[in-house]
């Protein structure tokens, strides 16, 4: 317990020491294990504890007969400084063991700005950051999470990537490490697992898909610290069928797999019993889409003393009904995401809602007593013209004139993402973003408008579409303390720009429009959606043609055939799967 002794000297001198002590109710200290995993969320405990993926894997690994899972998070800068001074390595919260002593250290890659944090965590653990510098005395470093759909920038640092659903693969990976006598054998074993990519051992990888959801974790860890989302979580469905063309999550998490109302209710009750939480969140990409959502809400309302929260940004009356159901008498704000100001642009991005539907929903909200509205938009969507931006302002004006007390809007700069139809689209430069933002300066009198820093979007664009060479940028960023880049107080865009220049990053090419024959860094990663489909969708976007929600009819993206899966909808039959070629034949005259 060397670490523990040293910790006591240090915890009096840092902010929020409770996030460094572990020992939370429901944290697991397993006595015996043949292989030890430490899962690391590369950001503060306050953020990482709200990440549900770790809770799922934690439960699965600790319930297994042979493996043990502990957790670590990146300490804040004041703690990092003291840890360096007092020679305290990064340690796990369950047993205060240095990460270096684990068999496997696993990172979850949730957003690109966390990449320098990953390297900082390795450094704080005294683990060499480059794969070729590691030997049998070091743990295997693995990574999972949505950013693995383009893991190229991190190939120099991570021993094995897991793409897709981790529930089954994680145990297979741990077994592979357990059965390997040395580092080379372990890497070889890992490379044979479906969904795993080991640099230099594999040439390509296909994502791992669970055909149906498995049992949900109920003994969720109850943090002492005030974390961002401090409530029980039930994942009610995974995946999304809308097909919004900008959305990476909607593409890579296909197909949809719902949990039944009975299971959700049972799980919720169990979570309440085992945690003492006063609120449960129904998690998914778009919870209002659950085919039995109304039944679900009325069944959960019967639970005593518990409030339900439902993150949902679907812009229609159903969303408002749901918001009503969850908030009871107390109504704070209602959030909707039109994404684009004009109908033309909404059609381009395939956000299948009309102006009429938006204002119907808002009228319904106002009648129900909501006085505060928050709206999300993006700037820089493909084919955007000045009149589309001005339309955002006009919408805000209309909303305010409906009589809402507070109207606020958040404008983010669009970042084209890998494996989406818009991976071919250009990204606008910060200067262009500022120019367009100024077009609605007049709308400030109707709504409080938050404009997220376009330079953040630029960096995100480089990291999310970059190739292996971008690893040099990440390495340099960590050296220059560009950690916690997602935190405004730590964000230093000028330094990032300097690094782009020094490393000769071809910003022009990265931000430009691409053709179908462009070789992407992520072409070797197969998430089941054919590149042909994505290109077809891109062309349809250019012509403002809508593509239907695939729960209403298959659109031929390919994921279900590729992995022999289908949408699992509790409330209805899943439509027949069709091949892209047969669909294309049906729709003669589609521009290609």
């Amino acid at each position, binding site marked *: 317990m060397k670490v523990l002794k040293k910790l006591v000297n240090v*915890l*009096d001198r840092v902010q*929020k*020491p*409770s996030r*460094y*002590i*572990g*020992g*939370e*109710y429901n944290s697991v200290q397993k006595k015996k294990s043949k292989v030890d995993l430490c899962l690391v969320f590369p950001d503060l405990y306050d953020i990482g504890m709200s990440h549900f993926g770790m809770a799922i894997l934690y439960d699965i690994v600790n319930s297994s007969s042979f493996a043990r899972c502990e957790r670590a998070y990146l300490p804040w800068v004041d703690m990092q400084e003291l840890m360096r001074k007092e020679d305290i390595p990064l340690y796990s919260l369950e047993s205060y063991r240095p990460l270096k002593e684990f068999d496997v250290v696993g990172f979850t890659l949730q957003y690109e700005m966390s990449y320098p944090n990953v390297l900082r965590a390795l450094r704080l653990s005294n683990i060499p950051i480059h794969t070729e510098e590691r030997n049998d005395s070091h743990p295997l470093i693995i990574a999972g999470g949505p950013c693995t759909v383009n893991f190229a920038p991190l190939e120099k640092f991570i021993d094995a990537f897991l793409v897709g659903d981790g529930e089954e693969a994680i145990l297979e990976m741990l077994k592979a490490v357990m059965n390997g006598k040395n580092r080379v054998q372990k890497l070889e074993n890992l490379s044979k697992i479906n969904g795993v990519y080991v640099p230099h051992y594999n040439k390509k990888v296909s994502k791992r898909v669970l055909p149906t959801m498995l049992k949900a974790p109920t003994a969720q860890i*109850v943090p*002492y*610290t*005030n974390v961002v989302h401090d409530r029980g979580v039930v994942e009610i469905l995974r995946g999304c069928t809308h097909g919004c063309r900008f959305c990476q999550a909607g593409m890579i998490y296909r197909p949809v797999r719902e949990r039944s109302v009975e299971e959700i209710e049972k799980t919720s009750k169990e979570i*309440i*019993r*085992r*945690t*003492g*939480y*006063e609120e449960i969140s129904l998690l998914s990409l778009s919870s209002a889409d659950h085919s039995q959502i109304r039944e679900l809400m009325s069944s959960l309302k019967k639970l005593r*003393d518990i409030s339900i929260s439902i993150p949902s940004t679907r812009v229609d009356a159903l969303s408002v009904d749901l918001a009503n159901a969850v908030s*009871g*008498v*107390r109504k704070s704000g209602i959030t909707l995401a039109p994404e684009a100001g004009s109908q033309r642009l909404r059609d381009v991005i395939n956000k299948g809602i009309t102006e009429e539907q938006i204002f119907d929903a808002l009228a319904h909200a106002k009648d129900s007593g909501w006085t505060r509205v928050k709206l999300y938009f993006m700037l820089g969507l493909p084919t955007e013209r000045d009149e589309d931006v001005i339309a955002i302002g006009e919408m805000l004006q209309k909303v305010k004139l409906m009589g809402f007390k507070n109207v606020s809007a958040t404008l983010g700069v669009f970042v084209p993402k890998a494996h989406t139809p818009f991976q071919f689209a250009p990204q606008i430069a910060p200067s262009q973003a500022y120019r367009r933002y100024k077009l609605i300066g007049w709308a400030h009198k109707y709504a409080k408008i938050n404009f997220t820093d376009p330079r953040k979007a630029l960096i995100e664009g480089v990291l999310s579409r970059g190739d292996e060479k971008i690893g040099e940028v990440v390495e340099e960023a960590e050296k220059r303390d560009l950690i916690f880049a997602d935190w405004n107080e730590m964000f230093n865009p000028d330094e990032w720009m300097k690094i782009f220049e020094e490393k000769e990053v071809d910003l022009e090419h990265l931000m430009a429009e691409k053709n179908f024959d462009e070789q992407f860094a992520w072409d070797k990663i197969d998430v089941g959606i054919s590149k042909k489909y994505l290109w077809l969708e891109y062309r349809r976007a250019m012509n403002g043609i809508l593509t239907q929600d695939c729960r209403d009819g298959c659109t031929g993206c390919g994921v279900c055939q590729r992995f022999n899966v289908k949408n699992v909808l509790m409330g209805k039959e899943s439509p027949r799967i069709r091949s892209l070629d047969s669909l294309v034949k049906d729709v003669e005259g589609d521009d290609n």
Partner: protein
Amino acid sequence: MLRYLSHLETMKMIDRLLRRTGIELKQTEGFHQRIKISFAQAVPTGIIDLAGLFVVTTFEAINHEYIKTANELSPNGFEIVKIEKKCEKFKLSKFVEGYEFKLLFLEKPLDLPFDVEKKNGIWIARIFRSFNSSVPKNGEYGQFLTIRSKVVTREVQVDKSTCGR
């Protein structure tokens, strides 16, 4: 390690523990109902608290079985040691006179405004602070550990709010 929880964090931890025990407890009024818990004076983060007190209202009588249940559902490092029934007019401020603190020193402290005794190689000072007065801060006198060790209750009843104890 629970001494590194702030007072707010400690209160939240107890709130959730009580919810886990499953018994019905009186709630606060208003829109956002929570369990009605009254806490006695807080200690600053970093001080070991062996004398924490809080008051709740139940709808049924509870006994020592409840202590056992609650402690089984508690996180490591937290324990309920005693439950006492009080009448409705009970007021913590009239019940508690103050607290005893123990300050632990690794080396013999000089020029302290109070006595120290040596025990097992460590010097210990015992001081009393009255209810709601200032609490010795960690390191304030050069001590390496501060413990709030005991509740000191009023000997003489001032009025009915001590419930005839």
